[in-house]
């Protein structure tokens, strides 16, 4: 809590219905956000049980300076990932952080399993576990509107929910947050499903006096100015992240048709400009963000004969256009939105879903699987059938689709085609095929995401230089550490350039946390150490990862990659992790 020396944790046990609130002073050593969530995950998880066992917890945490400064908007969710079997960590914007703050909780720990489908309401005056039997089976949009009508809290609430994919325990099911944001990656939706928890609504408007108004407002104004004046922020608002589609394709780093290429000849047709021209109807923001990068596109769909049309609007961004556009050979904006809509309704992670479908198209073409198994003549670019296949995955209509719902690593191991099932340590690849930075970055990153350490960004700025292994490892590890800090506040990573150390210290001071740079670095390392310990306890070792061959066959923006070189870099990184794990944590004493 702001101006307090403790972290306020709400514990909800779905098996017993018991609710408990803890005030934890010791958790201040982890600042907030990902730090606090990692520690709580470590305390509550059981490494010997499977990820979807009812005794595995779900942790939500907001950051140390959530919601009251520009672009500090995110909530972190941590869990044991049903997709990778190891560290599950995912971020979502929307209104969740804002409402948790005003409901009076820094973190929420959900354990156990409900006896029947339920949804949870969290308010400043109480927590309830309610009947959701009639909601079971509904898509995430529908359940959102039912809860909106049934519960109070208009304008100051957040509703998070799963679709059929989560109920059916697809390993990469997502949790939809306030219609347009998601806990997308690594399968939080399945963990919800395993607990028979369909949704959670958080409402809050606790009065929170600002004791140091002058300092606060000076800081707020300064950051607001910096945020709204940077060029990056304009870029994210105008055409949004899809502005990257064309340049990345031109450089050869846009994964296309199951990564058989890094260039998409129709990139222009699915570029940020194309979406803006054809489909863009609105832009939105997470609560507390003056930028507003959320782009909503609309398309028209005929749902019956006799000119029966409906207008459907869905959010789009770079990652979605990569995974459900270029990666699947879909070459027009309406087609991409058509598949996005299917992914949304079912509640799946778009990137994982796209990569799995990419494998399926190629596997069918090569005769590894048959049309009898795929039911549809699945092929690149055929977005109507691809969207149908998304439904089939979510419903697990037959053995193949059920296996596809377990991730590309699982399905490719079982049916064949491991070398073109594009995953990294079990997580489907992100939308960058830029070089060693992107590939090794995702391999060594704690949650195997491009956002762990932004290796793609290293590739882009070092494109013309010869590979310097040491320098790359240094970059990856220091970026991973710094992001542990950003993610404990939790700052949207689009604003990472605005939030220098100086600005971070300034905002923390405003909410009563006056730390030196050194202390902040210690905290960031402590967080990374905790995450590495969790990964180790779940049996992860960088050396065990076997990357699909295609990563080394299709040239990146920096040329073809060499498998041995990638392994060498990864091993060097692993060695550095061991060093961090072995370091004595002296400064934790300051907090206990």
């Amino acid at each position, binding site marked *: 809590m702001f101006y307090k020396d403790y972290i306020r944790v709400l514990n909800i046990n779905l098996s017993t219905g018991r609710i408990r609130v803890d005030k934890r002073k010791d958790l201040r050593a982890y600042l907030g956000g990902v730090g606090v969530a990692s520690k709580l995950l470590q305390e509550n998880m059981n490494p010997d049980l499977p990820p979807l066992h009812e005794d595995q917890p779900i942790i939500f945490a907001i950051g140390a300076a959530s919601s009251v400064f520009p672009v500090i908007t995110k909530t972190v969710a941590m869990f044991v990932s049903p997709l990778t079997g190891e560290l599950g960590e995912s971020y979502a914007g929307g209104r969740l952080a804002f409402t948790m703050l005003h409901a009076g909780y820094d973190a929420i720990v959900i354990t156990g399993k409900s006896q029947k489908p339920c949804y949870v309401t969290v308010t400043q005056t109480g927590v309830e576990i309610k009947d959701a039997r009639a909601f079971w089976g509904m898509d995430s949009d529908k359940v959102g509107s039912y809860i909106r009508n049934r519960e109070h809290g208009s304008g100051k609430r957040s509703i998070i929910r799963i679709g059929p994919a989560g109920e059916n325990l697809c390993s990469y099911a997502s949790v939809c947050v306030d219609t347009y944001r998601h806990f997308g990656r690594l399968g939080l939706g399945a963990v919800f499903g395993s607990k028979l928890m369909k949704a959670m609504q958080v409402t809050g408007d606790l009065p929170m006096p600002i004791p140091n108004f002058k300092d606060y*407002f000076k800081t707020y104004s300064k950051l607001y100015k910096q945020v709204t004046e940077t060029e990056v922020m304009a870029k994210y608002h105008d055409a949004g992240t899809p502005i990257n589609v064309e340049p990345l394709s031109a450089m050869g780093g846009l994964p296309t048709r199951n990564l058989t290429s890094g260039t998409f000849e129709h990139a222009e047709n699915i570029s940020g400009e194309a979406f803006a021209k054809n489909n863009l109807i609105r832009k939105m923001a997470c609560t507390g963000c003056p930028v507003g990068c959320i782009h909503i596109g609309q398309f028209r769909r005929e749902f019956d004969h006799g000119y029966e049309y409906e207008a459907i609007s869905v959010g789009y961004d770079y990652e979605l256009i990569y995974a459900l556009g270029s990666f699947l050979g879909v070459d027009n904006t309406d087609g991409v939105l058509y598949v996005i809509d299917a992914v949304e309704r079912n509640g799946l992670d778009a990137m994982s879903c796209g990569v799995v479908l990419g494998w399926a198209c190629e596997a069918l073409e090569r005769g590894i699987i048959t049309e009898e198994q795929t039911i549809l003549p699945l092929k690149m670019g055929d977005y109507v059938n691809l969207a149908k296949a998304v439904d089939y995955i979510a419903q697990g209509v037959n053995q193949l689709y059920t296996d596809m719902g377990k991730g590309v690593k699982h399905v490719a191991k079982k049916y064949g085609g491991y070398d073109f099932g594009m995953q990294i340590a079990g997580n489907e690849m992100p939308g960058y095929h830029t070089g060693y930075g992107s590939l090794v970055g995702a391999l060594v990153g704690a949650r195997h995401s491009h956002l762990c350490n932004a290796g793609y960004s290293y590739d882009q700025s070092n494109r013309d230089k010869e590979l310097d292994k040491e320098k790359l490892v240094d970059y990856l590890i220091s970026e991973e550490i710094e992001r542990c800090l950003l993610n404990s506040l939790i700052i949207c990573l689009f604003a990472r350039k605005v939030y220098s150390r100086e600005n971070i210290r300034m905002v923390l001071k405003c909410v009563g946390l006056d730390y030196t740079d050194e202390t902040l670095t210690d905290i960031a390392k402590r967080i990374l150490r905790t995450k590495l310990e969790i990964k180790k306890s779940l049996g992860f070792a960088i050396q065990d990862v076997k990357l699909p061959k295609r990563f080394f066959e299709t040239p990146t923006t920096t040329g073809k990659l060499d498998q041995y070189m990638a392994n060498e870099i990864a091993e060097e990184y692993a060695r550095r992790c061991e060093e961090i794990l072995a370091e004595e944590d002296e400064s934790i004493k300051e907090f206990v």
Partner: protein
Amino acid sequence: MARALRTDGMRKCIGCFSCMTVCAAVNKHNFSISKSAIKIKTNGGLKHGFYATVCHACKDDRACLEACPTGALVERKGGGVLLNKDMCTGCKKCVDACIVGAVFFDEEENLPIICKHCGSCTRFCPHQCLTMEEVDDVL
């Protein structure tokens, strides 16, 4: 010249809530947007656009003021009203009287929350949805 808050640009609203955060912070020294005199709302979920509920700066007849039995609300130059806290009994008559729903109520302080057209929110609206307009000084 007096000025009054206008919401003509709401089509560009992204729902960032900066205006509410700033209004509550500046006028009430509080982080809670329930203290804000402007409310950004949706028409049933985020799939529809945003609109703002805030005082329209009525000029000739001010229903809120007329309804106030104690005279705690006084005419503001350029439209709208100003609240004299000491005279307010917390009866909420103004809340009912304002047909645009722009009078909110602070249960904690037992006082109505009414926009005073200070303009702070407009300086932090990133897309110029909210603006201050110069208006005649008429009372």
